[in-house]
C-alpha cells in the first residue's frame, strides 16, 4: 500500500480499539446511496520506477529549445544552492508558520524576503508573497480602492503597455467588486505611455494609475511623469516592476517626487524556473501608511518571553481567518517555497551580482535586436531605451516563422498578432544573461534562412 504504514495487526488492533468490525463501518454516517464501491476513470497504481520512466520520457519529449521568449517569465541562471536548500524537508514539508516557536526558520526567511523586496523597490514594507505577478496586480488594484478612501469611483487607469495577460487577470479578479479598468493608448514611435494621454482624465475621480516598468514591450516608461500626474490629480500610483531591472533602474519608491503608493510584480526571475508557467511568486510592497490594507501574510520581528529576538506572523487581523467577510483578500496559502528560493537567490547575488545580471540582460538584448534587425524585412518597432525585451516588426506573419523556428529547437519569441493587431506582424523577443553571443547568432542565422527561403519561393 503506497505510503500507508499499517500492518494487518495494526488494522485489527485499531478497529478493536474503535469498536467496529471493518474500516467500511467508519463511513456509516454517509448515506448508503451516495457511497461508491470503486473509482472509475482512474488508472491502476504504478510503482515509482514506472512513473519515473513515463515522466522522463514526457519531459524529454518537451526538449530544451533555445529560448528567446520573455513576456512575463524569464530564463535566468539559478545558482545550485537555491534548490538544494529550498528542497530541504524542513522547509519544503512545513506549512504556514502558525506555531511561531516551531517555525522560526520560515518566519525569519519571510522577514528577510520582505526586507529585500522593500529594499529593491525602495518602499517601506512588503508582504511575504502573493501567487504571481498577474494576480498581484489585481490585488494591488483592489488595495488601492480600499486605501484611497476619498476616491469613490473605483476607476483605475491601466495602460495598453501593461502585460495583456496581467490586464486580463486584473479584470477577472476585480470585476466582482465593480472596479473599472480604463485603457490608455501608447505612443506608436516609442512604444510607451504618453503622459499627455492622461490629461483627458484630469479633474475626474481616478482612484489609481498603473505604471509598468519596463513595460510589456521592454521599453522604459516615463515613470516620473506618470507618478507626478497621479499625485497631482489625486490618484494613487501603482508600479508593476521587473525586479531584476531594479538593480539598474530607479526604484518605484523614488519615482516622481515622493514615490508610488504600491509596487508589485513577479519575483520569478529570482531563482524560480520557467516550469511551463508556475509556480511563480507575486510580490507586493507599499508605503507604511497603507500597510493595513495589504493582502497576504506578513512576518514581524519581536521578542520572546525572555526578551530574545524572534519572529511571528503579524497584522493578522487583516486576514480572512480573523476578519472573514471583511478581510483585505481571501488569500491564505501563498507561494512560500518560491519566496524562499527568491530570498536565497538574492542573498547569493547581492547588489553587485544582481547589477551584473541586469547589465548583461540589457547588453544581450541590444545585441539580439541588432543581429535580427540586420536581416532584410526585420526592424525594431520602437526607439528609446529598453531593458531586456524588444518588439520587432517583420514583413510577413509571425506565427508560421515561430513554428519553423520551433522545429529547429528555437523558441523565437511571442507573436503579438492577437494582443496588438495594430502593430502588424510584430514579434516580442527577449534575451537575458543566459543567452550567449553564439545563441544569438544561431537565432539570427536560422531566421535569416527562413526569411530568405520564403523570399526565394
Amino acid at each position, binding site marked *: 500500500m503506497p505510503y500507508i504504514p499499517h500492518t494487518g495487526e495494526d488494522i485489527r488492533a485499531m478497529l478493536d480499539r474503535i469498536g467496529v468490525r471493518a474500516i467500511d463501518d467508519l463511513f456509516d454516517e454517509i448515506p448508503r446511496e451516495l457511497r461508491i464501491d470503486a473509482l472509475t476513470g482512474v488508472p491502476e497504481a504504478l510503482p515509482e520506477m514506472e512513473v519515473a520512466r513515463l515522466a522522463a520520457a514526457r519531459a524529454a519529449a518537451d526538449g530544451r529549445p533555445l529560448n528567446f521568449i520573455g513576456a512575463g517569465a524569464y530564463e535566468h541562471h539559478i545558482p545550485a544552492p537555491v534548490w538544494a536548500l529550498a528542497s530541504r524537508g524542513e522547509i519544503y514539508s512545513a506549512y504556514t508558520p502558525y506555531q511561531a516557536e516551531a517555525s522560526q526558520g520560515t518566519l525569519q526567511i519571510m522577514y528577510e524576503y520582505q526586507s529585500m523586496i522593500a529594499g529593491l523597490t525602495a518602499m517601506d514594507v512588503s508582504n511575504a508573497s502573493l501567487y504571481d505577478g498577474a494576480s498581484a496586480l489585481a490585488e494591488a488594484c483592489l488595495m488601492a480602492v480600499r486605501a484611497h478612501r476619498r476616491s469613490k469611483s473605483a476607476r483605475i487607469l491601466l495602460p495598453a503597455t501593461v502585460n495583456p495577460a496581467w490586464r486580463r487577470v486584473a479584470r477577472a479578479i476585480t470585476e466582482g467588486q465593480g472596479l473599472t479598468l480604463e485603457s490608455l493608448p501608447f505612443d506608436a514611435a516609442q512604444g510607451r505611455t504618453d503622459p499627455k494621454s492622461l490629461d483627458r482624465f484630469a479633474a475626474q475621480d481616478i482612484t489609481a494609475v498603473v505604471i509598468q516598468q519596463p513595460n510589456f514591450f521592454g521599453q522604459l516608461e516615463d515613470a516620473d511623469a506618470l507618478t507626478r500626474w497621479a499625485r497631482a490629480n489625486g490618484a494613487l500610483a501603482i508600479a508593476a516592476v521587473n525586479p531584476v531591472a531594479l538593480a539598474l533602474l530607479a526604484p518605484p519608491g523614488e519615482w516622481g517626487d515622493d514615490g508610488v503608493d504600491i509596487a508589485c510584480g513577479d519575483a520569478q526571475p529570482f531563482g524560480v524556473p520557467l516550469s511551463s508557467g508556475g509556480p511563480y511568486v507575486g510580490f507586493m510592497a507599499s508605503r507604511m501608511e497603507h500597510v*493595513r490594507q495589504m493582502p497576504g501574510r506578513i512576518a514581524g520581528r519581536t521578542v520572546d518571553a525572555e526578551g530574545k529576538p524572534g519572529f511571528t506572523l*503579524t497584522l*493578522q*487581523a487583516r486576514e480572512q481567518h*480573523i*476578519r472573514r467577510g*471583511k478581510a483585505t483578500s481571501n488569500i491564505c496559502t501563498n507561494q512560500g517555497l518560491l519566496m524562499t528560493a527568491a530570498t536565497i537567490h538574492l542573498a547569493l547575488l547581492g547588489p553587485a551580482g544582481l547589477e551584473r545580471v541586469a547589465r548583461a540582460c540589457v547588453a544581450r538584448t541590444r545585441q539580439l535586436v541588432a543581429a535580427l534587425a540586420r536581416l532584410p524585412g526585420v526592424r525594431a518597432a520602437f526607439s528609446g531605451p529598453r531593458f531586456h525585451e524588444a518588439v520587432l516588426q517583420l514583413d510577413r506573419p509571425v506565427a508560421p516563422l515561430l513554428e519553423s523556428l520551433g522545429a529547429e529547437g528555437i523558441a523565437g519569441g511571442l507573436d503579438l498578432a492577437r494582443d496588438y493587431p495594430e502593430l502588424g506582424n510584430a514579434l516580442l523577443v527577449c534575451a537575458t544573461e543566459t543567452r550567449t553571443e553564439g545563441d544569438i547568432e544561431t537565432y539570427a542565422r536560422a531566421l535569416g534562412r527562413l526569411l530568405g527561403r520564403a523570399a526565394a519561393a
Partner: protein
Amino acid sequence: MSMIPADLRYTKSHEWLRTLPDGSIEIGITDHAQQALGDLVFVEVPEAGRKLAAGNACALVESVKAASDVYSPLGGEVTAGNELLATQPELVNRDPYGQGWIFRLKPSGSGGAALLDADGYRAELAAAG
C-alpha cells in the same frame, strides 16, 4: 466581572455613551468588549466632520486575534476622534470609559438604536452567558 458604570448608557453591540456638558455624546467600547478582544494593537477613529447615520460602522478596534467594528449608536456629525489612540491603542484596555473614548458626536436628533441603562446592559451580558 466587568465594570459597568451606572451613569452611562449602552448598546447591545457593546458601545457606551456619555452625554457631555455641551450636549455632544462621547462614545467608546465597554470594559466587557475590551476584555473579550484582548490587548488592542490598533484603533481607527472617525474624522471630525464625518456624518453618520445610526448603526453605521465608523471605527475599528483590533487585537492580535480579533477585529471588530464600532457602530455609531446615534445619527449625527463627528466632532472629534480620539487621536491618542493612534499611538496608544492600549488606552482602551486600560481605561475604557475614560482616556479610551473613541469618538464624540453631535447628535442630529434622529432616533438611534434602543439604548440600555447599566442594569439593562448587565442583563444583556448575563443572558449571553
